[in-house]
């Protein structure tokens, strides 16, 4: 089992009336009214400190990702964060989830990922996201209907840039390069492991399954919500005659640990509410620009009554208590023992080998976040590490240079 720590780098201090006063946390929240550059500088440093602390406390990897123009999580360049993390960690995987393929020049992604692999000594996980509609269509102006094509073309170019020995030409629809000759190339051969985040769209699931990459189901609605979509991935792999190796699947889970169940509610409930009410305050049209999903997915989603994305789920959880968030598996929370039990269920239920734990939510202060990380690292992580060992699977999707020992480092 590999357990990494994920961080979104959110705005931690949105005003109480944020979701009433502003129509969206993404694309259009006005910076000048809501943020201060020096304070945000502090957020970036807290985020890096927290991830580095996670590495110290035994997490197998640290995860960063890319989003734009929002107060929900704003690392516009995950590679900048990853570069600092590569320097300040020794044996942890650097999981970049990742540089959004349709909006970054693919040759630049190939170069920067190779730099990160070099600096970290082969510890990079090369995340290749399609990107959200908010980021790619609304913030970066890519026509929705081009997004998937651009993603696939960028992927092909990056893999070729890493693996081909010759200087070659790439004559794509969106990228025409007379001379592709990427300097540097990654340490990991033939290339760093590729993880592809998704939220269940069939076209992405099939694409990942066919290529033997690691599919990472990233949502904030837990394993019950994910189950149906994740099962489709395993079914597709089975159809293709591929093994059910749990390391083929990554899964993001919100995790909150305290000394006791009661203390967890006392310490974290306000932050859970902040996260779901403020950090995820995005209207449907920003998630779903027309053409962001292809026609067959549009038909399927319309017939099914929605996309199963935040706007659809918002009404359900309106009056939820802390325990409802746990019972519905949106969050995993409680004493170390409770958290261990809940995570065991999640891991087994989904057949997940690469867990990504989100240890910081929206408004959580730095010290509380560190406490969450420490309790998890000391009292939960060691008990989950060996969960798949009896089945003898090999994690082909783990970076070769990330040789974190199985023991927890004490500080």
């Amino acid at each position, binding site marked *: 089992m590999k357990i990494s720590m994920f961080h979104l780098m959110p705005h931690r201090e949105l005003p109480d009336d944020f979701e009433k006063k502003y129509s969206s946390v993404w694309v259009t929240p006005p910076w000048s009214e809501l943020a201060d550059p020096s304070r945000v500088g502090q957020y970036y440093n807290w985020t890096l400190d927290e991830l580095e602390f996670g590495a110290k406390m035994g997490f197998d990897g640290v995860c960063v990702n890319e989003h734009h123009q929002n107060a929900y999580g704003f690392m516009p360049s995950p590679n900048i964060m990853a570069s600092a993390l590569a320097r300040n960690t020794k044996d942890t995987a650097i999981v970049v989830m990742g540089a959004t393929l349709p909006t970054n020049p693919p040759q630049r992604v190939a170069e920067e990922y190779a730099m990160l692999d070099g600096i970290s000594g082969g510890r990079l996980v090369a995340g290749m996201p399609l990107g959200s509609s908010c980021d790619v*269509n*609304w913030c970066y*102006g*890519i*026509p*929705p*209907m*081009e997004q998937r*094509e651009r993603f696939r073309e960028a992927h092909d170019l990056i893999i070729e840039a890493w693996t081909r020995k010759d200087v070659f030409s790439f004559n794509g*629809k969106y990228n025409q390069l007379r001379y592709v000759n990427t300097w540097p190339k990654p340490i990991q051969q033939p290339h760093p492991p590729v993880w592809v985040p998704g939220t269940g769209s069939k076209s992405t699931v099939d694409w990942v399954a066919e290529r033997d990459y690691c599919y990472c189901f990233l949502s904030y609605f837990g394993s019950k919500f994910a189950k149906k979509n994740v099962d489709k991935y395993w079914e597709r792999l089975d159809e293709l005659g591929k093994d059910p190796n749990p390391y083929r699947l990554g899964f993001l889970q919100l995790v909150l640990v305290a000394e006791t169940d009661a203390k967890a509610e006392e310490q974290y409930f306000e932050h859970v509410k902040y996260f779901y009410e403020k950090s995820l305050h995005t209207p449907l*049209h*920003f998630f779903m*620009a*027309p*053409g962001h999903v292809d*026609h067959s997915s*549009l*038909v399927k989603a*319309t*017939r099914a009554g929605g996309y199963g994305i935040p706007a659809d789920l918002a009404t359900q959880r309106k009056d939820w208590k802390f325990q409802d968030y746990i019972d519905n598996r949106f969050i995993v929370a409680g004493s170390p023992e409770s958290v261990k039990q809940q995570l065991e269920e999640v891991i087994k239920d989904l057949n997940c080998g690469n867990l990504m734990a989100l240890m910081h939510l929206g408004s959580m202060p730095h010290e509380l976040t560190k406490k969450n990380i420490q309790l998890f690292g000391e009292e939960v992580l060691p008990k989950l590490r060996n969960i798949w060992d009896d089945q003898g699977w090999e994690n082909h999707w783990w970076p070769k240079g990330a040789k974190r020992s199985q023991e927890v480092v004490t500080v």
Partner: protein
Amino acid sequence: MNRTTNVLKTMNGRVESVVHQAGSGPPVVFLHGAGGPAWDPFLDDLANHFTVYAPSLPGTEGDPDAVREIRGLWELMLHYYEVFDQLGLDSPAVIGHSFGGMLAAELASTNPDRVSKLVLISAIGLWREDQPVGDWMKLTPDELIPLCFYEPEGKIATEMFSMPEDEIERQDEEIKRSWSLACSAAFIWPIPEKGLTRRIHRAKAPSFIVWGKQDGLVPPVYADDFKSLLTNAEVFVVDKAAHVPQLERQDVVSPAVVKFLS
């Protein structure tokens, strides 16, 4: 009125294109807006005087992926010229509404010989910082209706945005609307100005620019901008109409357009 529908193939057979046709007389091509194709009473009025051809934007009817076979505005122009060829139209009058207006202006500018007369109704295609075109891609029907209709509660608005009662038909309509927006977005995302001002001087067709005085989506100032860019244009601003003047003020717009085209 007797209406027929033809399915054509353009771009060496790659692109399926649906064309609706009615009436008799000189040819008039009507290009629909971003909301997708619909035969409406304004087209019936035209068909009383002309042969009306209403080609659907590829993807919005028939093969949904036809739109993917067209790379950019340049190939879209070639597609429409091929549609003209297959319909035997050398130089028809072309009417475009909103997104269709932009296409009509582009067709008249790219090859001026293929458009004999040009009618722009509430057309997009230009951009002003001081009065930007509204972002209909993100507006909900509740936000969009007051911008598009002088009488948001009126019969025209209600009919245009009404949904079938039957669940499957309602879903079909939702899919059709969403995909129509997706297909037009392929050519105008994220700002519906793709360089028309640099080309429009080439258009030589006499032009008639129709605008609703209360258009909240594409403000009437754009009518004047089109007039100043076109060499031979007159503007017809209609009171008590917003973004769909040909339906809200069909009583005055239909006769004016018929007169201009006759």
